[in-house]
């Protein structure tokens, strides 16, 4: 069995980069697919003639612990996209004809085994045309081997992992949209370092992180990144998922003398820390939060004092397309999207839609197109690098009503950070 594993892993160690995208470890099959890709146009259009819809399937956490995350970022965007496509008469195929989307959805109940089975069901029983990914890093990884096996392009949007390059090679039809912890941590340390050079902040940082894969990935990346830039970690603790009281933690952070406060947190922690900081009159010059800081509800939670709060993600707030998307989302779903993964999710769907318009329903061809093509999305022009979205915004800040991107510095659509953050009233 061990031997088998070695054999399996060998090809993708030898092959790298672009080469990898064309040839897979199932060389024969891929070769065949490449051959048929050229002729797929006619094949698909003939198929399209006797079909009345395009079947899209997905399994997301509608109940259980992950329901909250999925309910904010993933589900509304799937629903919005399906609505938009069907309102336009359906998904456009290369021959200009349109077919409406038919959706099959399952609740994975926040259990990995269920999400794995749901993908098997979608792929083997329902035989849907495309499968949209589940929510969460762990769940996307759990379904990745199956998506690969069934030959579905896997648009892993809500997965933050530093191993994305490795995974993109391992499963060559998988696409990783949200970067890894290192990206966010390094971008943040750039922002802080720039501010320190300007003399805006001292070299001390107070950092807290939530004890799960996400928090640990980020904090492990942030420690060396910050120390590299000469920062001193005056306070650095990890708190368990489920912590509801941050009085002691914020108090200790306040006493650390750091000008910068970083929380690699999840929404309950983000909200709790913000409220506690306000109560404690804790006014660091930089106040950075993790997931939840970019949620629209954050304005309400901070009592309208979100100005200057930094966080993970961010959008190009002056972009017309983003503004239109926010308005559209608010209108159709009832509340605005979050300013991190929501826009990315919707963009990934736009890419899928466009890829199908260009090459049809052949999944290998779509995967190839996703991998090599350039797409117009609400995030602007997007082209994947090594099956990963790299033109992301890594950090944002509330400026006025928008959570605007501030990193990478000088990147498209980013604004200059405001430091120090205005004090809480």
């Amino acid at each position: 069995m061990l031997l088998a594993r070695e054999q399996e892993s060998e090809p993708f160690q030898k092959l790298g980069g672009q080469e990898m995208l064309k040839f897979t470890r199932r060389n024969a099959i891929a070769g065949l697919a490449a051959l048929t890709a050229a002729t797929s146009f006619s094949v698909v259009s003939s198929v399209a003639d006797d079909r009345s819809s395009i079947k899209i399937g997905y399994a997301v956490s509608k109940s259980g612990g992950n329901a909250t995350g999925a309910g904010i970022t993933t589900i509304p965007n799937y629903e919005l996209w399906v609505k938009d496509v069907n309102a336009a008469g359906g998904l456009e195929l290369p021959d200009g004809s349109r077919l409406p989307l038919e959706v099959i959805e399952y609740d994975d109940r926040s259990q990995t085994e269920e999400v794995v089975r749901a993908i098997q069901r979608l792929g083997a029983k329902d035989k849907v045309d495309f499968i949209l990914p589940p929510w969460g890093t762990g769940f996307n990884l759990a379904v990745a081997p199956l998506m690969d096996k069934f030959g579905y392009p896997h648009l892993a949007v809500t997965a933050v992992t530093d191993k994305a390059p490795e995974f993109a090679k391992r499963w060559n039809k998988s696409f990783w949209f949200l970067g890894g912890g290192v990206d966010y941590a390094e971008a943040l340390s750039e922002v802080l370092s720039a501010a320190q050079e300007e003399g805006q902040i001292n070299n001390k940082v107070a950092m807290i992180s939530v004890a799960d894969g996400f928090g640990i990935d980020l904090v492990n990346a942030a420690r060396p990144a910050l120390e590299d830039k000469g920062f001193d970690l005056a306070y650095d603790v990890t708190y368990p998922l489920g912590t509801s009281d941050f009085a002691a933690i914020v108090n200790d952070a306040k006493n650390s003398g750091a000008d910068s406060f970083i929380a690699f947190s999840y929404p309950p922690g983000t909200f709790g820390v913000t409220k506690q900081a306000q109560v404690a009159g804790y006014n660091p010059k930089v106040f950075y939060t993790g997931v939840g800081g970019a949620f629209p509800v954050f304005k309400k939670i901070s009592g309208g004092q979100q100005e200057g709060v930094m966080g993970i993600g961010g959008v190009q707030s002056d972009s017309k397309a983003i503004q239109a998307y926010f308005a559209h989302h608010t209108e159709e779903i009832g509340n605005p999207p979050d300013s991190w993964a929501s826009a990315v999710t919707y963009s990934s769907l736009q890419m899928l839609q466009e890829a199908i318009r260009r090459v049809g329903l052949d999944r290998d061809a779509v995967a190839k197109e996703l991998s090599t093509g350039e797409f117009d999305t609400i995030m602007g022009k997007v082209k994947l690098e090594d099956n990963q979205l790299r033109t992301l915004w890594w950090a944002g800040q509330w400026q006025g009503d928008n959570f605007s991107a501030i990193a990478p510095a000088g990147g498209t659509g980013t604004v200059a950070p405001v430091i120090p953050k205005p004090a809480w009233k």
Partner: protein
Amino acid sequence: MTRTVLFAIAILAGLAILALAPAFLGEYGLGFMVSLMSYVTLATAWAMFSGPTRYISLATVAFFGIGAYTVAVFNETLPYPFVLIVAISIGALLATFVGFATLRLAGVYFVIFSFGLAELVRQLITWFEVNITGTLGRYIFLPFETRHIYWQLLALAAVTIGIGFWIRQTRLGLALKVIGDDELVAAHSGIALARTKVLLFVLSASLMTLAGAIQSPRWVYIEPAIVFNPTISFLTVIMALLGGATRLWGPALGVIPLMILFEWLSASFPDHFSIFLGAMFILIVFLLPKGVLSAVETRLARLKREANA
């Protein structure tokens, strides 16, 4: 004698058919069977201890999770069979501790204790990973296809039911039955309560640990929040109780209808799963307090009596 032989042949034939399932079931059907076998193992193992002793344990996921997590930690450094052995050892060690707790706790105290234990294990593993190893979230890349996992789980389920059957033939089984009826009488009849309960709990927990270990390669990515999902404990309890926790085949028979029901619910009513699940619980408590098997037997017995009268 011939009946026993026939029975054995029927069991072997059934096993053979199940073992051939990958040949005629598609990927989806096989995935379903993986879950089914996993829950048959969990529910049967759960009932092995909880059926006779009436201790409702919510620690199932503590062992299941330990199994999965052990594989995640060691899958790259140890050969697979050794990983399984390590998993069982850790599971059995923890089970010994829990087993001794049963000597002091009963009723709702044990229920809460077992639930708290699963949470404690999760918190401690998280803390350990964060502070000592600095990696939270581990990967399992074992070259198993669905069918490999299915075969392993089928074997485990068969072994579990086999152990359940064997226990019923032995003094241990008799001892358990007595403990279930009346602990005081059991003690005064010469049955060592502590040893019997701990032994059984360790046995049952080891099987649960193995189930988690075998199933884990399906998930690729493992972190404590994923493998210590309390829903698994709850579902195990409800499945075992539906079928009847005091019968050998009860738990297995409880798993099948519920799995099918859940499958249907999550497909047909993805937004209302919780509500249906809750309603199921209440219905079982009110209508089938002793499980389906027992209800059917009572009904049959009544029909027979009426026919005789």
